[in-house]
Structures are given as structure tokens and as C-alpha cells.
């Protein structure tokens, strides 16, 4: 049997820092190295690097050996910035249409991608926004990426953040030009995205689902009214909802898209659970039954209710017996 144990990963380079250096903490932003000291923790002597966040003033102590593992890196150099601008000018970046893959990629880029990773997230989501508006979470991610990018760019170029942001946007939104409108065809053919439809643009999981909910709720209410007090009604709901669920919902999972799509073309899937009770057919000429009232029946009135009401009880101390 072959040995399946993975090869040990290459050791990460140790970041040699000194007090006063400026570094970037992934997903947090710029930090200043304020102290490097040896502390004893649980009997172990470790060299800790104290980082102070420029924006919030927060302090974090990281063991020196774990700086690289945590993704702490030096600020990008002007050469890196040039490469980033070249990348931003190119029209090569296309975000995946599969929102799960896109979210995974973007999260990874934000944490370990460096300045070019931030640029990829910003560019990818910006291009995607030319196809359709971004869902709220991605809009937030776009804003976070832009914020981290601008603050690092300002530090790298030694300029104000306003200038750094405008330097970015001069590339993304060239002066005198409107943003182009993208078509879905431009995004297809990337990493198997050609199998995906319009329903995988990422809205289904968030905004799209919200729009469809009221209709489903109405359907559920209607069905529950028809069935009255039938105890089986709640059990039937999921099966019925699954059968009536539009194609968009079924296609949410990328890995099973094709299989589910194929199943839709074939015979309808057999419903699970107990079949619904047959409704009695109405007799011709007979008046339809009054709909059964729901809820607890009203309390029967006591027999004494018809008797004349008792004289109201006098308040206060009873008179003394003579």
C-alpha cells in the first residue's frame, strides 16, 4: 500500500521586524511595530511582537514565529503597486458566477493574497457589479477590500487616502467614460461556470430568496386553509413545497446542478410520506357545508345565567348585631 501521508509543508519565512516598522495584518489593516520583547508563557520563553493598529489603536501581541503563519507581511513596495495598477488596467479579471466559489476565493484572497489579492477582490466584484448589483454581503466585502487596499496603497505611495482611492478609481472608472454593461456570456466558460444558469449569480441565497418567500408563504397559507385542522398538514408542507419549488431553488447547489436539471426533465419524483386524504365529493343540489371554525369552541354558559342577578355585595364592615 502506498504511503499517503502528506509531505511536510515548507517552513514559512521568518519575518524580521524591528520597532517602528509598518506591517499589514490580514483583514485588519496597517499596524506599527511598537515593541519586541521576550515573555514567559506557561514556562516557555517566546519572543512577542507587539503591533498597534493604525486605524483603531488596538494592540495585538503575536509570537515572532507565528507572524508569517498569521499572514502578517510588510507593506507593498512601489514596484508591487505598479504591477497592481497594470493588473487593474487589464480586462482579465472575471469573478466566478458561482457565489460559493466566489466567496471562498475572495475570503482567501483577503487573508493571504497581499495587495494583489485585495486588488483581485476589488476588480472582480467591480466587474461583476457591471453585470448585476452586488448582494449586500458581497457589497460589504467589496467595501472592506477597498478600504484595506486604499489604506495600504496610501502607505505604500506615501500619500493621503483620498489620493490613493482616486488613484484606484481613475483606473476602475476612467474619467470621461461610463462603465460598460457586461453580458452573462462574458462570464461563462470560466472554471465550469458554463454549466450554471442565471440562477447562480448569487442572488438566490440572499436577495432572491427573500423575494420568493411571500409567494411561498401565501401558497402554504392557502393549502393549510383548504385542509382545515388536518394534523398531517405540517408534515405535507415540505414535500409539497419541494415539488412546487421553482427551478432556481433546485439549482442552488453547484455540484448537483446537472443531475437535478436532468431529473426535472424526467417523470415527476414520487412524493414521500402519507398521501393526502381524499376529499368527499359535494352532492349535487345540496348546500355546501359551512366552513369548520378553527380554534377552541366557546364556553357553554352556566344555567344560573338566566336567574336574576344577585344584589351587589355591600362593601365595608357589616353592621353590628343588635
Amino acid at each position, binding site marked *: 500500500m502506498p504511503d499517503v501521508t502528506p509531505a511536510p509543508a515548507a517552513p514559512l519565512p521568518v519575518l524580521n521586524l524591528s520597532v517602528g516598522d509598518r506591517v499589514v495584518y490580514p483583514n485588519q489593516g496597517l499596524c506599527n511595530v511598537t515593541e519586541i520583547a521576550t515573555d514567559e508563557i506557561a514556562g516557555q520563553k517566546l519572543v512577542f511582537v507587539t503591533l498597534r493598529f493604525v486605524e483603531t489603536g488596538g494592540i495585538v501581541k503575536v509570537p515572532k514565529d507565528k507572524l508569517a503563519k498569521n499572514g502578517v507581511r510588510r507593506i507593498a513596495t512601489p514596484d508591487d503597486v505598479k504591477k497592481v495598477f497594470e493588473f487593474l488596467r487589464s480586462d482579465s479579471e472575471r469573478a466566478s458566477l458561482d457565489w460559493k466559489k466566489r466567496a471562498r476565493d475572495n475570503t482567501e484572497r483577503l487573508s493571504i493574497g497581499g495587495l494583489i489579492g485585495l486588488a483581485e477582490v476589488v476588480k472582480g466584484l467591480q466587474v461583476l457589479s457591471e453585470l448585476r448589483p452586488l448582494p449586500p454581503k458581497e457589497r460589504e466585502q467589496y*467595501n472592506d477590500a477597498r478600504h484595506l487596499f486604499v489604506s495600504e496603497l496610501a502607505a505604500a505611495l506615501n500619500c493621503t487616502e483620498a489620493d490613493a482611492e482616486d*488613484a*484606484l478609481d481613475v483606473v476602475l*472608472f476612467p474619467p470621461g467614460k461610463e462603465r460598460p454593461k457586461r453580458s452573462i456570456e462574458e462570464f461563462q466558460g470560466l472554471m465550469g461556470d458554463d454549466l450554471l444558469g442565471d440562477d447562480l449569480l448569487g442572488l438566490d441565497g440572499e436577495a432572491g430568496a427573500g423575494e420568493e418567500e411571500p409567494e411561498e408563504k401565501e401558497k402554504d397559507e392557502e393549502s393549510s386553509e383548504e385542509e382545515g385542522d388536518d394534523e398531517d398538514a405540517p408534515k405535507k408542507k415540505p414535500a409539497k413545497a419541494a415539488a412546487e419549488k421553482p427551478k432556481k431553488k433546485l439549482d442552488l447547489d453547484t455540484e448537483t446542478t446537472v443531475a437535478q436539471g436532468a431529473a426535472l426533465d424526467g417523470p415527476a419524483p414520487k412524493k414521500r410520506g402519507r398521501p393526502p386524504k381524499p376529499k368527499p365529493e359535494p352532492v349535487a343540489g345540496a348546500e355546501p357545508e359551512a366552513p369548520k371554525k378553527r380554534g377552541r369552541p366557546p364556553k357553554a354558559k352556566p344555567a344560573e345565567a338566566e336567574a336574576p342577578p344577585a344584589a351587589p355585595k355591600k362593601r365595608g364592615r357589616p353592621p353590628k348585631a343588635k
Partner: protein
Amino acid sequence: MIRIVTLDEYDPAILKALGKALYTAFAVGAEHSGSVTIPPGQVEPYDANKLLDALPKVQAFADDKVLYLTTRKLSPRKLASGEAPTAGITRYKGQRAILSSSVIKNLNPDTVKTLARYAMQEIGHAFGLHHCLDPRCAMYPSWTPSYPQGEASFCVFCRDTSEAVIRQTKS
């Protein structure tokens, strides 16, 4: 509080309408807080960064935003990636911003909404907002051709962000 400080003469009706538009956008009081003169040594078109640094201070609380308004032109800024047309500039998350109304043709109380749109962007930067992707939002980059035609309003995301920032201010 948003304090509008003029560097040149403006119609009081325009300033009143601008203050009203800013109050509507940020739910923070906005008023004309006097005039100052441009310090000597500056030449039109002005370098926005230098001019903003050189302008005299205005009495304001720590959380107040000061918007300097001028009719004179600001020169385009040369940046690492190209030249950026400049209608105004702000110290990001700072207190001061400058805006030139020279980008608006025929400024009058009827067209003040365009000025308000530009002003909202500068004040938005001062509150920590970045540029937005939505062309209808006031935080969309102001050098795009469609920007002056838009309404003086934020998109949902920018409005929520600005409201959250304003809620956290101390005063």
C-alpha cells in the same frame, strides 16, 4: 454638525438649499458658518491638497465637518495611476473638505441639487465612506459623465454606513 464655510460670495438661497440638502442626507445639522479668505501664495487653478492645508481654521467641535466652498477652479491631481479631475478633496475620516462649484454650470437655487451631490460625496469621505459602485449614489466617482445628472441621495449601503458612523460620534 456640518459647517459650510465660503471662500467666495454665494447667494444665501443657494447656501440655505445646500444646507437643507445636506441635513436631509446625513440627518445632521448643516449651516453656513461664515466666510474666510484664501491665503496668499495660491494660484488658480489651485492645488486642492495644498489649499486645504493652507486654509484658516474654523471654530468647530471635534466631530464637526467643515466644508469649504469656492467658485474657483481646482487643478487635476497627478496620481500614481493617472490624472484625476478634481471637484473637491477631503481628508478621509477627517474634519475638512473643500469643494469647487466651478464644475457646475449656471449654479442657482434650482440646480443646487448637483452642488449638494458633490458636497455629499466630500462630506461622505469625511465620515469614512468610500466610492460606491452604484451610479445613482452620491458616492459614485464624481468625474464620470453621468454624475452631475444624478439625485442628491445615497444608495442603501452608503446611507446605512454613514448613519452607523454618525451614531458613533461622541457629540
